[in-house]
C-alpha cells in the first residue's frame, strides 16, 4: 500500500490521525492546525491587547508546559505584544512537586520568561503535607482546589499582571459541563464554558486551550519533544469527577467529536434570567479581601478550621455552623495576607481610554 498523503497539504506523508477530526495528516500540518486553532480561540474572544502582562499558570504538567510553548510561539508569530510570565504554585507535597518545579525552571531558561514560585507555606503557613498530617487523606482536594485558585490570583497580583492563562483543555471543560448538570451546580454551569472569567474586580483568567483535545496536547508535546511530568493529585481525588471522566472517554471512543459537541452544548445555553436573579452576588472576604460569596472566603474558612483543629469546617455546612457556635475566632490566628489587586486593575471604571 502506498503511503497516505496528508489530508491537509496533499503533499507530505500523513503520519498521524488527528484525534479531533480523524483526518490523517503530516506533522507540520498538525502543528499548524493545533496552533492556529488556539490562535483562533484567542482572537475570536479578544483575549489580549498589546502590552498586556500575562502570567501562565505553570505546573510542570503537560497542559501548562505545552501552553507556555504555544503562547510564546503565537506571541512571536502574530505579534500579540504580550509580556509573558510563568507562575507556579508549590503546594508543599514532598517528592511530588520537586520534579515538576524543575520542569518549570527549565522552561524559564528555554523560553526566557520570568518565573514566580509561590508556596502554600509562604501564603497560608501550611503545606499540603502538614494539612494531610492533621486531617488525614480525605477531602484534601477541597483544599487543593480552593488554595490553588487563590494562590494563582495572589501570585498574579505580586507579578502585577493583568491576566492569568491556565492549561485547562477541552476534555476538562466537557467533563465540567457534564458534572455541573449532573450535580445541579447551576452557577458553575453558567460560567464553565466561558473562555475568560472576570468578576467585578478580579484578574482576568482564561483558557486558550478550551478547544484543544488532551490527546492532541500530548501529541504536540511528543512531536515537539517537550518534557513534562504527570501531575495527578496524589491525595484523594474527586470520585465523582473520576466517573465523569471515564464516561467522557467512552463517549470520545464512540464518536471523537463528542468532546467538542459537549462544549458546544455548554455554549449554546445559559441560565434563565429569572433563575440568575436568585443567585448569590459576589462580595469580598472581610478577613483577606479576596472575592467571596460569603463573609469569609473559602480559603479563610478552611484555614481557620485548620488553625483551630476543626479542619472539615468549610467542607460541610454543619461543620461551619459548629465552628461559628464555638465562638469568635481567636486573635492569634494565622491568616492570609490582605489581597490587593494589581495597580492596573484598581478602580476599573477609570481605566477607560479617552476617545
Amino acid at each position: 500500500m502506498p503511503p497516505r498523503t496528508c489530508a491537509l497539504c496533499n503533499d507530505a506523508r500523513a503520519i498521524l490521525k488527528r484525534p479531533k477530526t480523524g483526518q490523517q495528516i503530516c506533522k507540520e500540518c498538525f502543528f499548524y492546525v493545533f496552533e492556529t486553532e488556539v490562535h483562533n480561540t484567542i482572537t475570536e474572544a479578544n483575549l489580549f491587547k498589546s502590552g498586556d502582562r500575562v502570567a501562565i499558570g505553570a505546573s510542570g504538567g503537560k497542559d501548562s508546559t505545552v501552553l507556555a510553548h504555544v503562547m510564546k510561539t503565537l506571541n512571536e508569530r502574530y505579534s500579540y505584544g504580550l509580556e509573558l510570565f510563568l507562575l507556579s504554585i508549590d503546594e508543599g507535597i514532598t517528592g511530588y512537586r520537586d520534579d515538576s518545579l524543575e520542569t518549570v525552571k527549565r522552561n524559564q531558561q528555554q523560553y526566557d520568561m520570568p518565573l514566580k514560585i509561590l508556596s502554600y507555606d509562604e501564603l497560608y503557613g501550611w503545606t499540603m503535607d502538614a494539612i494531610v498530617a492533621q486531617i488525614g487523606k480525605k477531602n484534601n482536594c477541597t483544599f487543593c482546589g480552593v488554595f490553588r485558585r487563590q494562590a494563582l490570583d495572589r501570585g498574579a497580583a505580586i507579578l502585577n499582571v493583568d491576566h492569568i492563562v491556565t492549561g485547562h483543555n477541552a476534555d476538562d471543560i466537557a467533563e465540567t459541563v457534564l458534572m455541573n448538570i449532573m450535580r445541579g451546580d447551576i452557577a458553575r454551569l453558567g460560567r464553565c464554558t466561558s473562555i475568560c472569567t472576570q468578576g467585578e474586580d478580579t484578574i482576568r483568567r482564561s483558557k486558550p486551550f478550551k478547544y484543544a483535545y488532551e490527546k492532541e496536547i500530548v501529541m504536540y508535546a511528543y512531536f515537539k519533544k517537550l518534557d513534562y511530568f504527570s501531575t495527578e493529585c496524589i491525595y484523594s481525588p474527586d470520585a465523582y469527577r473520576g466517573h465523569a471522566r471515564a464516561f467522557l472517554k467512552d463517549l470520545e471512543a464512540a464518536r471523537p467529536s463528542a468532546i467538542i459537541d459537549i462544549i458546544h452544548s455548554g455554549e449554546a445555553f445559559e441560565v434563565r434570567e429569572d433563575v440568575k436573579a436568585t443567585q448569590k452576588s459576589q462580595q469580598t472576604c472581610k478577613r483577606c479581601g479576596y472575592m467571596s460569596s460569603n463573609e469569609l472566603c473559602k480559603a479563610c474558612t478552611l484555614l481557620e478550621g485548620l488553625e483551630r483543629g476543626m479542619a472539615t469546617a468549610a467542607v460541610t455546612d454543619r461543620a461551619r455552623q459548629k465552628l461559628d457556635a464555638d465562638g469568635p475566632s481567636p486573635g492569634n490566628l494565622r491568616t492570609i495576607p490582605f489581597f490587593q489587586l494589581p495597580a492596573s486593575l484598581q478602580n476599573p471604571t477609570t481605566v477607560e481610554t479617552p476617545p
Partner: protein
Amino acid sequence: MLSTASLSNIRIVSYCLAHIQFLRNCFFPLTTHKFRRALEPNVNPKPDGPRKTALKPAGNLLVGFSGGLGSSVLVDLVHRCYVSLDKSTMPTEGGRDHPRHERVWKKITVCYIEVCDVFPGMTDKTEAVANLVSRYDELELVALRIRDAFDPSWWERVRGKPAFSEIGVSLADQALFMESLSHFRQDPLAALHTYFSSLPTPTAVHTSIQTLTRVLLLYTALHTGSSHLILGTSLTSLAVSLISGVAQGSGFNVREEMLEEWSPDPGVTEVPELWPEDGKRAQKLKRTVRIVRPLRDIGMKECAAWAWWSHIPVVGKEKWLWPGAKPGIGTLTKDFILGLEQDYPSTVSTIVRTCAKLQPKGEVDGKCILCGRPSQRGVQEWKARISIRSQPPPPPSAQRPLPIVEESPDHASLTPYLCYPCHTTLTSRSARPVSSPWPNTTQPSVVSLPMWTEARLSTTNKALAESNDEEVVRQRKLEQGEMKGIVDQFLLED
C-alpha cells in the same frame, strides 16, 4: 403475654400487607396527580400555572406510542383520565361540577411507528400494539412504519406538498453536497436501508431513528387535527435523553427536549396554517403542535409499579442492535446514568431540574430542515474555527487563483440548512471501524432525504429562483468556498 414468635410474625406480615395496601392507595392518586400537573398547565393555547378553569385545547390529542413501559403507562393514564373518567383519578378539589370532570379531548389518537425495518431480523410488533390499544375504547390507532419517512404516498396522505424535484445528499462527503436523483425513486424500504447504511456511526443510527420518528409523529399530529402530542418519556428517560443530547451538541435545544412547540414550514403542507374558527375565541389561532412529556416527574420504577398493579401487558421494545454494532452515545449515556443513579440516588431528578433552568443562548437561524427544531446561528463558522479541516493556502510565491465555486444547485450543500446536532449526526465519524446494519446494501453516491426535507428544499429553491431577499443570503451563506474563507482569514502569512 402475646409476644410469641408466630404472633409477631403475623403482625409483621399483616402490617406489611396493610402498608402495601396503603402505598397502593396513595400511589395511584399521586401518580395521576404528577401526570396532570405536567400536562394540564400546557393544554390551553396559552400555557399557565395550576388552574381551576376549564381545559380547552385548540385541537385533538395524539399519543406517541413506542411499545415501551413509559408509553404503555401513558396510554393507560390518558384513557383513565380523559376517556373512562375514572373517579379515582379525579382531583378532589372543586366538587362534582369541577370543570375537569368534562371531556377535554374531542378525539384521541395513538400513533405507533414500527422501526423493525431498520434492523435485520427484528420482529414486527404492529399487531401486538394493535391488540393492546384495542383494549381501550375510543382510542384510535394509527400504525406507521419508519420507512414512511421516504414514502411519497405517506406524505400525500398527511397532505404534504410534493417536491418539485427529487433531491438527495452525498453522505460519503463531509461537505454534504446535494444532487438531484437522476435514477427513479427507490422504493421506501430500499431508500431507508440506503440512508441508514450510509450513516457514519451507531450513534447516528439511533439518533436518526429518533428524529425520523419524532417528525413522523408531528406530521401525523398535524393531519389528525391534534394540537398536542404527548410522549411517554419518564423522568429517567428524560434525564438520559438530556445528557445524551448535550453529548451530541444539542445544548441549544435543551428546552425543546422538555417542551416543544412545532409548526410545519410554510409551503410544505396543505393543512391550513390556522385553526378553524372556534366561536369562543376572538381570533383564529396559529396551528401548532405542542409536544408534552406528562411522565416527566414519574420515574421508571413508578412506571413499572403502575404497569404491574394495573395489569398492563407491556409489548416491549427490542434493543436497537445489529451484528458488530458498538454502543452509541445514547446507549452509553443510559448505562452511565442508571449506574450513577444507584450510587447517587437523586441524579436523574437533578439533571432534569438543572436543565429546566436553562434557556438557549444566541440567535435562532430558522428551523433545521431535517429535525424541524430551531437552529442556532453561526454554528458552521464555529466548527470551522475550532476544528480546521481544510488545507492552508499556498505560500504567496505560489499563489494560484482560487477555484471558482460552482453555483449550480447540484453543488449546493445541505449543511447550511442543518442544525448543529443534525450536521454532526450526518458528518461526525468514529475512530474505529463501523459495521452497517445492512452491509450488503450497495452504497450509492447519493441517498434520498426524508419527504419533509425534500419538500422544504423545493420551496427554498423555488424561493431562491423567484426572489432576491433574505432567503438567498441564507442559502448562500455557507458555500464551501465561504467556509474556507472563514478559515483563511486566520491563516498565517509565511
